[in-house]
């Protein structure tokens, strides 16, 4: 499809504000003014509408396709929450209003949303306090590690290491490193953390252990009590990566289990849309002993019921975001949680796990399942057998696109060869699950009878297989 620059016509107008009586040159000297051209696209409003309407049709999305992308929790995004976030009373609100003395009364509704959502997340996770500032999951991780650092610094601990199991999310080691720690990796055993391997690397240098639970293999970390014990022994804090929290709501609360820090992905578990890669929201919850380090500002409720921005936390790690986080996103999560309520949330978890196990079971005779036991909300399978015939996980993924399904996450986690990581979520119907399985089985059969057709896939998408090496080499990053 042509880019907007290719269809641009010099002099064409779209939205057209009225002209100022006096131009910039009247108010600013020449040396401060732009000297170079501004070659943005020049389009009519209809051009723009058609361009983006057509572009949109080149996308798969939850609204159009099953999206079994493991670890991404691509559940249905309820439409009414979009309406909530667009309410002028929220969308038009300048974030500095409540920072002006005397003007906090003008934003009581917004502050209540923050306060109450934090309360709800505390109850969901068993944590003592939450901050909504982090603007994505990885940002939450970084915040969490910074909290761990602040704790140890304050206690005078000299800690340099963070332990990350090989079944954790890829961002965990990156976040720990960015925050100034050295990362120690440990190998899993039978798909879960091996307490002996952990014990072997534990020492007083260890600031924290970052776990994903259920982990990226979709397995619950059954040795959790032992791990907690080990962590406590060395005053290491336990970090819970909430990317997979959809598996476990109402079944386990990280706080009860002994975790000190948890981040959640509102755009996964709480149904806020992913937007093609963002915006997300990655709130962080902490146990009692980390409360005083949470980022500022914090919303507090005064005795008269008024909400108030409090900056008076001297041990706080400070500002993580310019304001209160991705407010527009947590409006949606808040509305979603109120809609579901206690039972609805438990049902979401149960049905997510039900769907994953159903898929696992229906596929077990067709695809290698490395850890073929009851899984949580997702499971990993492997195309090792197909790979022997030359059909790799990638080919299977592309074959699924031709059948109108998005592909599972592939080649992740790294510890499973030819990995296909499948997460159906609770919102896909049984007939969609069945159609996915049937189509996948059909593709697997083709890997025997007609492997070439899978190497050719996809053929029904707007482009066929793209040359990623060429892209990296050519570095054409703009027109």
């Amino acid at each position, binding site marked *: 499809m042509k880019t907007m620059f290719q269809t641009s016509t010099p002099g064409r107008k779209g939205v057209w504000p009225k002209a100022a009586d006096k131009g910039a040159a009247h108010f*600013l000297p020449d040396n401060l003014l732009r000297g170079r051209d501004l070659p943005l696209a020049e389009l009519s409003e209809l051009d*723009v509408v058609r361009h983006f309407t057509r572009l949109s049709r080149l*996308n798969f999305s939850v609204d159009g396709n099953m999206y079994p992308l493991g670890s991404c929790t691509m559940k249905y995004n309820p439409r009414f929450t979009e309406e909530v976030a667009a309410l002028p009373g929220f969308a038009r609100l300048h974030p500095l209003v409540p920072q002006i003395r005397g003007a906090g009364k003008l934003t009581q509704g917004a502050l209540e949303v923050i306060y109450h959502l934090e309360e709800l997340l505390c109850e969901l996770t068993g944590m003592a306090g939450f901050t909504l500032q982090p603007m994505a999951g990885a940002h939450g991780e970084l915040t969490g590690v*910074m909290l761990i650092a602040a704790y140890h610094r304050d206690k005078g601990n000299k800690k340099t290491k963070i332990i990350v199991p090989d079944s954790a999310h890829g961002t965990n080691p990156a976040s720990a490193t960015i925050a100034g720690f050295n990362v120690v990796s440990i190998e899993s055993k039978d798909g879960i953390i091996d307490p002996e391997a952990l014990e072997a690397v534990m020492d007083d240098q260890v600031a924290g252990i970052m776990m994903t639970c259920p982990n990226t293999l979709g397995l619950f970390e059954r040795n959790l009590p032992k791990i907690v014990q080990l962590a406590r022994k060395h005053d290491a804090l336990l970090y819970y990566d909430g990317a997979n929290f959809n598996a476990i709501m109402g079944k386990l609360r990280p706080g009860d289990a002994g975790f000190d820090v948890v981040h959640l992905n509102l755009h996964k578990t709480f149904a806020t849309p992913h937007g093609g890669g963002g915006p997300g929201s990655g709130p962080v919850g902490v146990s009692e002993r980390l409360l005083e380090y949470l980022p500022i500002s914090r919303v507090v409720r005064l005795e008269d019921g008024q909400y108030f921005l409090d900056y008076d936390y001297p041990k706080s790690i*400070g500002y993580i975001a310019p304001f209160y986080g991705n407010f527009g996103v947590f409006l949606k999560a808040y509305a979603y949680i109120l809609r579901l309520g206690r039972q609805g949330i438990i049902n*979401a978890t149960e049905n997510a796990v039900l769907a994953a196990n159903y898929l696992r079971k229906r596929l077990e005779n067709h695809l290698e399942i490395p850890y073929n036991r009851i899984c949580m909300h997702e499971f990993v399978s492997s195309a090792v057998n197909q790979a022997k015939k030359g059909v790799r996980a990638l080919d299977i993924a592309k074959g699924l696109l031709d059948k109108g399904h998005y592909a599972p996450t592939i080649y992740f986690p790294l510890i499973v060869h030819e990995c296909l990581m499948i997460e159906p979520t609770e919102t896909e119907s049984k007939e969609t699950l069945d159609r996915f399985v049937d189509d996948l089985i059909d593709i697997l059969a083709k890997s025997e009878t007609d492997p070439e057709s899978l190497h050719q896939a996809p053929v029904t998408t707007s*482009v066929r297989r793209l040359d990623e090496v060429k892209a990296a080499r050519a570095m054409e990053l703009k027109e």
Partner: protein
Amino acid sequence: MPYIPHTPDEQQAMLATIGVPDMAALFADIPPELRPKSFDLPQGQSEMSVLSHMEELAARNSTDLTSFLGAGFYDHYNPAAIKALASRGEFFTAYTPYQPEASQGTLQAIFEYQTSICRLLDMEYSNASLYDGGTAIYEAIMMAVRKTRKRTKILVSQGVNPIYRTMLDSYTTNLNLELITVPHNQGQTDVAALMDHLDEDIAAIIVQNPNFFGSANDFTQLFEQARKNGVVSILSVYPVMQSVLKTPGEMGADIAVAEGQSLGLPLSFGGPYLGIMTCTKPLIRQMPGRIVGKTTDVDGKTGYVLTLQAREQHIRRHKATSNICSNQSLCAVCSLMYLALLGPEGLKRTAELSIQQAHYAAERLTSIPGVSLYNKTPFTNEFVLSLPCEASKVINALVDKKFIPGFPLGRYYEGMDNMLLVACTEKTSNQDIGILAELMGGVL
């Protein structure tokens, strides 16, 4: 069960296929002693009831304010087509384009975004966006630190948005870095002082244009001096104003960053916003976040993919350039729509109207006895008033009349309690300015 399609019959059939008797069996791995101690959430409500509750909460925020708040976050007009197009499910319910063949809509849009941002900021490369303008500054510093290797000092002008400087403090606490803040000089970015500080320990220098007080600058000489000292120049800008102001490219910045909210995003009480990040060619390998590149498919047809992923966390794990694994994709697409709808001339008109209204406001407000203009150099759509009393006193008096006359600088700058930062956009009418002048005159 909201949003769950399974009927009890279907659930039973699925359990039977799995070979377990009930839901509980699916959670047998969780040790009984770890079961929740409490799970005291409210009962679910109907969509109607939640929406009505949210409308009540929204109504408890005042939207009938006439506000002169800016401070880096501006109330420009967002054309209606943006929301109409961005709310197409194909955009907002898609994920990161891991399967490029099924995601060309998002990928091409991001490629066009990168192109538009490069053209607007007059820089060589743009990434697919970061969280916000503040994290963009932090990431820019980290780029400079990686690039300059052993250097550990960062020069930060006090003319940079204090909110972002506060964020920088947080982010660098655990790192072996020293932030050196160079004070402003009566609201002007102190270029001479910044020049004086340049030496071989400095990794990066950060300035902002227009600065936090609204004053426009030309940093060409500063950046030239920085280059001579091997220092990476980082310029934070205001995208709408870039249609009329000297560009980062013209000034010779190595990295230009910005908060992109002014490009078609609602203020939304602080987020989601858009971190704009651009750089020159020598820095591209240090660029954090996603980048989209152009390529061809097996038939030779043009297509787009995520590229240079070797920098990223899911490949490099702890060796990644950053831990960022998402962009503000939808926000970036909205800003692209904004730029496409306005075009170069529309954007320029927006900037010029905003500038004109600010100058009219400055003229009207400084005609109030005791009120004077603090800016000593040219400003764009924002300026500082020096008041004869505490700014917050004036604000308090006006808030009840639904006017917020600006932001009190004392909130972030010691000794500036009498200073009021006033912003206008093309939405600010002469009438609003007139009423503000009257109201302020009345309380002073």
